């Protein structure tokens, strides 16, 4: 047990050291980790709040209370906490993007969520501290264009290449509590600060001598407050003596975010290279509306070792005001439907083998997406599979998830992406503040 704990601690520490410069994927990274091309638009691709114990299904897990891994999707489950639980995770996603003329491959490696849940009163009142991404904007594009003869003060055409590298997104640091009133009803609330930066580096390189390259950096900063509510409950012995039905619902209110944008460039002034600000705006005090989100779900366990989970997410992206850019009306309301299953053989008595001390999960989701371009929804269908390796003593675990999905379409000049992802999460479960009773 001590060796496994040590391994887990060392692994987390090493991973934190390696990826500290890219914490949550939201900080500036000169090496431009490239993700989905669609994260170029708006404030990026929305991320789902999920429980690490159910991430292998791809659902949010709003109706799932995993005893050994902390939940993020529903404040209501925090009141049903017995152990102190902490988790962190890393994800890599490979994108194979295609349009009607060409293709590209991009990779994204990033830290996901940090989440800690403490039981103030075991199985009655719990507190959560968590930091997680709300959106990600990580992309790299390259375009070749030319100004035709006569349009560039020259009898010849002027060709140039434009590279756009973007990184950043919105993150949420949240503090909340959950309170189990009765088995059938738990409530929860969390308040949070929403913050983030989206940085877009643009470089223009001309193909003709005598033209200086142009490079500028546009950084948009956001900040605001968020509020979230949750409900959770369990019903036992509905159809059999071993079955259990749980429900969950979570509501995140829309948030008004202040936004500021600064554009800088490096220019030679006199004899030295200087970084100069060429544009600053606070958009006249207008605020970005981060949309309301609501999730409802059900989980049914016909027996302790099997769970069937389903949930639906709705985000009101039609309320997102795109005043930051010149493109209008590209967001629409988003729905995400998910269905999955968990198999936990370790809960079956008299089975003790390597494979039985592992949790298995699989699921499929359909996400309508929050973007509508050229009259097309940018939807995503994703299948996931994963397993958890459990520590036999403390039930700490390592979860490994594989996912494969398809996003978008090649119609109307858009891009279709094949996504292959892998996630590793670490769950630490400890019985803290426990005073053993002597017999």
């Amino acid at each position, binding site marked *: 047990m001590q060796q496994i704990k040590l391994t887990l601690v060392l692994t987390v520490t090493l991973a934190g050291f390696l990826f500290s410069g890219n914490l949550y994927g939201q900080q500036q990274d000169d090496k431009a980790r490239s993700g989905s091309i669609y994260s170029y638009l708006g404030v990026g691709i929305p991320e789902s709040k999920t429980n690490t114990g159910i991430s292998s299904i791809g659902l949010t897990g709003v109706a799932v209370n995993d005893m050994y891994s902390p939940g993020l999707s529903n404040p209501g489950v925090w009141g049903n906490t017995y152990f102190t639980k902490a988790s962190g995770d890393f994800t890599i996603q490979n994108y194979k993007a295609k349009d009607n003329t060409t293709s590209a491959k991009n990779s994204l490696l990033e830290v996901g969520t940090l989440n800690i849940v403490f039981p103030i009163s075991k199985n009655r009142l719990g507190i959560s501290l968590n930091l997680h991404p709300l959106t990600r904007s990580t992309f790299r594009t390259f375009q070749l264009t030319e100004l035709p003869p006569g349009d560039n003060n020259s009898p010849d055409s002027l060709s140039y290449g434009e590279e756009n590298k973007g990184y950043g997104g919105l993150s949420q640091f949240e503090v909340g509590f959950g309170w189990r009133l009765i088995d059938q009803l738990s409530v929860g609330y969390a308040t949070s600060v929403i913050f983030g930066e989206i940085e877009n580096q643009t470089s223009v390189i001309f193909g003709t001598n005598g033209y200086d390259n142009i490079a500028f950096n546009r950084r948009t900063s956001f900040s605001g407050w968020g509020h979230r509510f949750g409900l959770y409950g369990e019903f036992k012995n509905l159809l059999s003596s071993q079955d259990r039905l749980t429900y969950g619902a979570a509501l995140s209110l829309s948030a008004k975010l202040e936004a500021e944008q600064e554009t800088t460039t490096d220019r030679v002034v006199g004899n030295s290279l200087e970084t100069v600000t060429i544009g600053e705006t606070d958009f006249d005090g207008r605020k970005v509306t981060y949309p309301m989100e609501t999730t409802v779900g059900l989980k049914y366990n016909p027996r302790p070792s099997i769970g069937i989970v389903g949930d639906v997410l709705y985000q009101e992206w039609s309320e997102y005001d795109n005043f930051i850019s010149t*493109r209008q009306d590209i967001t629409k309301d988003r729905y995400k439907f998910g269905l999955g299953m968990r198999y936990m053989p370790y809960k079956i008595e008299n089975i003790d083998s390597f494979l039985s001390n592992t949790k298995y999960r699989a699921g499929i989701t359909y996400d309508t997406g929050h973007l509508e371009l050229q009259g097309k929804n940018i939807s995503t269908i994703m299948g996931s599979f994963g397993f958890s390796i459990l520590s036999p003593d403390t039930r700490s675990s390592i979860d490994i998830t594989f996912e494969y999905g398809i996003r978008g379409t090649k119609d109307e000049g858009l891009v279709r992406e094949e996504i292959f992802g892998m996630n590793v999460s670490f769950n630490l479960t400890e019985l803290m503040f426990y005073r053993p009773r002597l017999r």
Partner: protein
Amino acid sequence: MLQNILKKITYGNIQHIRKSLPAVALWVLVLAGCSEDPGVVGGSFIDESSEVYSDTLNIEDVRTTSDIPDFSGNMEYFSAGWYNDPALGEFEAVAMMRPSISQSYNIDSLREVEFSDARLQFVINTDKFYGDTTSTTTFELRSVTHIWRPGSWRSDSLPSYGNTAVQEFEVTNQDTFEVNLPDSWLQEYREYFNSDVANRDSVYRYNYNGMAIVAQNQSKIVPFNRQGTRLMVKNEGDTAYKKLPMESVAFGFNRREPAQMDSTLTPLVGLFNNAMIVNPELNQQTLGSQNLSRVELALFKDQETLVNLPVDHVRPDIPEMRVYRRSPDEVTYGIGRESRLYRVAEDSLDNSYRVNLTSYVNQILYGQDPGVQFYVVPESSSGIIYATLLYNSKSVEFRPKVLITGAKTESVN
């Protein structure tokens, strides 16, 4: 018992696998992240963030000036001649020269004129004739009648000279020739040469004003090479002439405008006889952006009037157009020739001169606006008289303009 042993072995293996799985997972993550090939997808729906544009800024403030003093002393060439250019008007140039009296050229005294001899050796650049290359130009050497110093002789001042010719010579198209000097001249010269007073050089310059080279017929303007022009002297019995350089040379010229001049054209004549002043309004608003890739000043040469020269008549090819960046109060006493200068060759595709102003414009946008104008003349530091015609702001098609290529930075995502 065997089953228990097997269970223990199995359990030990399980523990080993469990311990190594996190490290394996980490490596898989890193290796899986190494493959990347960002291509050009999404080009049809991804808007340009940069919005590259080209624009043209017509320059309204274009003027000419003949008031900038320029000094023609001791240049590589000194010019003399007389020519009527049908496009640019009538040119008259008079040169001055004063030979050295240095005694360090293997001769320290001159004997009486009966026993000594003097002549002038001239070297001229026949490639830089301005006028009729086949005609014969007659020049007279006359005595200059005023004190002058090469460092302060303005090129727009014609020298004054006496009525009597010291000597006469003709130039057709030879590049080297000699002219005998009369005894009367040699007599005067040897008195200064043989003097042994302590301030002999000052006395010489103060009292002897040298010779002017004056054209006697309209033919061409001839550039005399200063280094090649020598006073050759010898005493009887010397095997060869001793060659003394010209201590001082200078020239002045003026130009009378032609009877008719196209109002869309401005004559530009070197040594600031006539310069064009271009004053574009350069700021972020007129330039369109603060992100500029190329800003160039375009000036266009006349393509019709200049070609109408008689057969065998030429103008010297202009090696470069010079564009000086100066504030108005800096030119009151002249323009220092080699600083803040753009040297521009002619673009043969469209007969234009293009000056790259990108660095200067960045200084305006991001530093301090120095408040300068641009003064345009043909190359003017060799002593050869260059002249041309450029279009001014009255020309609709070929007026001076600023050509801008840059990128706007509106957010488009």
